[in-house]
């Protein structure tokens, strides 16, 4: 049997040929979620309106406490995750006539902890807090800013304007072919410089201890087992993350990210 014929035989034996599937409901549900911020710029005004609705909903529903925006912006990590702004945002971002799904996640309070910190020159030190949710075991995440407020809550007078997902459960993982999973943000400091921030978790290959941006050379240690947050100058063309082991050997190289 020739090698051409054997390929034909395998083709013919395909146990589950691909069929054309048109699932308009699924499509509408997916695109109702916040899209890729690099293509769909978040409209702060709209986000603020949703958050105003969240606050109104929380306050007027009388869910056991007056979690107004002012309170939530300085809430404890546990209180923030329990309020789950991301889930609220998701529930309200649906299209008319769609089923209200939200994220359906509830934070597991005992898993709330500080994953790592990162420093943006000119701004100061930020903290990345994480937790795990039930029932899906998603990663919950939120960035606490140097002044104690939470990033991306649409807080009036937010001087950092970090950009990124609304805090809550389901903001990660972003899988990619190389096994990295991370969020991306950007911030402009008062001196006009723009910084990219990538924060997430590393591939499990080997024993990584450090993350490096191959383009800028920036490095950062891996905290809490798998988590990292790296700040990179935006005066470089994109970035490309790598994990390094204790000896400095490259374990995994992420795909090049234009970082626009």
């Amino acid at each position, binding site marked *: 049997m020739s*090698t051409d014929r054997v390929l034909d035989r395998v083709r013919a034996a395909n146990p589950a040929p691909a069929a054309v599937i048109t699932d308009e409901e699924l499509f509408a549900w*997916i695109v109702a979620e916040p899209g890729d911020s690099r293509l769909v710029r978040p409209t702060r005004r709209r986000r603020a309106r949703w958050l105003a609705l969240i606050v109104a909903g929380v306050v007027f529903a009388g869910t056991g406490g007056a979690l107004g925006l002012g309170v939530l912006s300085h809430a404890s990590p546990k209180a923030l995750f329990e309020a789950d702004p991301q889930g609220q945002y998701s529930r309200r971002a649906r299209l008319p006539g769609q089923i209200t799904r939200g994220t359906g996640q509830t934070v597991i309070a005992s898993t709330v902890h500080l994953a790592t910190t990162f420093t943006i020159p000119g701004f100061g030190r930020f903290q990345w807090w994480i937790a795990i949710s039930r029932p899906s075991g998603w990663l919950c995440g939120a960035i606490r800013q140097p002044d104690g407020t939470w990033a991306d809550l649409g807080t009036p007078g937010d001087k950092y304007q970090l950009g990124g997902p609304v805090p809550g459960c389901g903001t990660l993982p972003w899988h990619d*072919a190389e096994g990295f999973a991370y969020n991306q943000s950007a911030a402009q400091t008062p001196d006009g410089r723009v910084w990219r921030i990538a924060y997430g978790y590393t591939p499990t290959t080997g024993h990584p201890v450090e993350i490096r941006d191959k383009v800028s050379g920036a490095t950062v240690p891996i905290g809490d087992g798998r988590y990292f947050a790296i700040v990179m100058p935006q005066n470089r063309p994109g970035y490309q993350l790598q994990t390094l082991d204790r000896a400095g050997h490259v374990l995994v190289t992420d795909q090049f990210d234009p970082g626009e």
Partner: protein
Amino acid sequence: MDDRSAAEARFAGVFAHLGLITAYARRRGAHDPDALAAEAMAIAWRRLADVPADDPRPWLIATARNLVLADRRRHGTPVGDLDGIEPAALPSPTVELDPELEVALRSLSSQDREALLLVAWEDLTPSAAAASLGISAAAFRVRLHRARRRLVYELETRTRRHALDNCQPSLEQL
């Protein structure tokens, strides 16, 4: 066209491959292929800038592969080789795979088998299949050639063995 409409139009081109990803997940033994494909599409929407506009299939398959691996870890199933996941559930629940072919496929290394199946079942070109595995096209072609040659060898060996078995005279004939 505003940013959002443009992104939705671009995503529609990606979403058109939902059937391919569902089939991929089913063939690779995902516990819930429909849900896995939906999750892959949701990830594609969130990372649309990373999804190649000309041919999103390699990116989608790579993402689906990661999700299948995560699915297996959650269910306590051995994940096999990360470079070429073990298609443990080669036959789908509804369609039987030719037993002779199934045995021959299982005799290949997981990397070789994945290379073969990406071309034969996912209908990817060698370049696209290489992209989905994160290896060079040249390396993939070598892997594919080796897989085809080994599969031919396995099938022919089994055929010869089968023929020999049939030629053995029975005790009654002797």
